[in-house]
């Protein structure tokens, strides 16, 4: 493939990245505001950061958010892989279509509907609202997105690859672990990160299914928004952002060192 990048396309990428990050830099910029609002920069101050570090409740909420995101992505990725395999291996076209349609229902449904119907479901099942109901819901709405990320990888995998492995005497498990999974792993990682994104972003579903004593960051921000967002939330976002940013970069370079083939993608 053409490996050169012309200056014009470089500029294009720079603009895209600039736009993607602009609101975030805006938030971070105002976290250093000594005033109280996001439209009038009065002077530089670290006051909001100081306040943030004294707020244990907010810290617990941040931890809640992260743990729900991580666990739900983990479980939904595993179930999602199984689901994608089930759809892929369905022999009849109708079964495949039916499964796919069911799969996509949760993607199309507005969050409010998902939240409301899950709330009814949990009420009927007698699940207490709190950590487990939120975790279950996040797993539930992340599964279809993982399936959608993994499925294209499965379809594009040539069946002869599996046949070849079979001919060489590989068992079903070997075919799975040595041929299929490595092949689709970019899709799996993509699915995991998408699930993480959905979970971190979700407000409406969590809002419905959470009870007292458990809150996530987005729910907290929505209830704080009544008075205009306090700038310690900006400070929090700044810290979280820099933290994830650093984590992503470090993670990338570690995997690069350990494994020259980035994330299992075959290179030619």
């Amino acid at each position, binding site marked *: 493939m053409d490996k050169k990048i012309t200056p014009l396309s470089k500029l294009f990428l720079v603009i895209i990245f600039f736009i993607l990050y602009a609101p975030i830099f805006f938030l971070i910029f105002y976290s250093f505001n000594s005033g109280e609002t996001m439209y009038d920069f009065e002077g530089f101050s670290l006051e909001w950061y100081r306040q943030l570090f004294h707020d244990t409740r907010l810290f*617990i909420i941040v931890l809640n958010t992260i743990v729900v995101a991580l666990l739900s992505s983990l479980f939904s*990725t595993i179930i999602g892989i199984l689901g994608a395999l089930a759809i892929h291996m369905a022999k009849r076209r109708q079964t495949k279509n039916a499964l796919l349609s069911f799969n996509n229902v949760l993607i199309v449904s507005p969050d409010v509907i998902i939240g409301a119907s899950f709330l009814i479901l949990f009420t009927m099942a007698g699940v207490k609202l*709190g950590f487990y109901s939120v975790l279950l819901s996040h797993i539930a709405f992340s599964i279809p997105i993982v399936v959608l990320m993994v499925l294209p990888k499965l379809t594009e995998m040539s069946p002869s690859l599996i046949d070849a492995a079979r001919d060489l005497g590989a068992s079903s498990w070997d075919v799975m672990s040595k041929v299929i999974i490595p092949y689709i792993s970019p899709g799996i990682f993509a699915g995991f990160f998408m699930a993480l994104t959905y979970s971190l972003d979700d407000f409406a579903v969590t809002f419905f299914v959470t009870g007292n004593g458990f809150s996530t960051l987005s729910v907290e921000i929505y209830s704080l928004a009544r008075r205009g967002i306090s700038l310690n939330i900006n400070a929090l976002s700044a810290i979280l952002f820099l933290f994830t940013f650093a984590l992503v970069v470090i993670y990338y370079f570690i995997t690069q060192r350990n494994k020259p083939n980035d994330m299992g993608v075959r290179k030619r």
Partner: protein
Amino acid sequence: MNHLIRFFLVIALASAIILYGISSLNSSQGYSGGNTLTVYNWGDYIDEDLIKQFEKKTGIKVIYETFDSNEAMMTKIEQGGTNYDVAIPSEYTIDKMKQDNLLIPLDHSKLPNLKNIDQRFMDLPFDPENKYSVPYFWGTVGIVYNPKMLNGKKITSWNDLWNPDLKNQILLIDGAREVMGMGLNSLGYSLNDTNKKHLLEAKAKLDGLTPNVKAIVGDEIKMLMANEEASIGLVWSGDASEIMSENEDLDYVVPKEGSNLWFDNMVIPKTAKNIDAAHKFINFMLDPKVAAKNTEYVGYSTPNKQALKHLPKEVVEDERFYPSPELTKKLEVYKNLGKKNLAYYNELFLQFKMHKK
């Protein structure tokens, strides 16, 4: 495959560590077990120092949680998987909650401070004899405007808003009853009108306002008004006082045709676990000094007559927020119109929103 499994194990391990951290933090903060009281209130609607004061005085640990709409709060309490001890809904919700048996009657003998409340605000139609609720704050619906941006023009009535000079200048709060009420009031009808002809008339009049309406927004209206994004806003008086404390150029008026009078009230939902502590809390909030401090922080109008003595004169005498008896007569409290009529209000409001300039 190994790569993948290792990745998953790292995630699982990290989650386990975080979960352990959460549970140890929770217990060190006293959020689990023991003598606790869970308060369910609007966001930032109490002076947090008062919570600490209450905790110190009674030894009860307060867990303070917030909601952002009456409907959301009611859904949570209805569902039953929660244990809120005190909640602070608006008056029209109290009516609904009563009908659905979601409230526990108050024990007035445990609320000696109830005598501090102004008689005007006691025994109101939504809760006769204050069997279930005690007023927390009250206020009006009106117009906040920026004389500087309007070149010194004054706004005194709803009908002033239809002035063609005000193109793209008005922000409305996203509430069916507030906006429809504006239309009804401007025509001289009652806020609680259920006559379809009157309602259609009001809607047609509102359609004529569309060129002047810049946007219909939620709580961000405070930020937008203070930031001079528009010169006129339809808001609740509490929001208006917040906006004015941020931008001193702005002024607030309750239109002369009349408007809405609202109350937020403390109640004990049926989900309460610590009913005794809930009474203690309500009584504490009714203490004149406490109520005065809270009023200074929140900036809404207090129904606590004794608290007025502890407040600065310019606050108490500000007719915009403590309207004169003559104006008060023109103010109406929202009645529960029943689901069907309310649905019709909402339907018309939706049509108004869809009406293109």
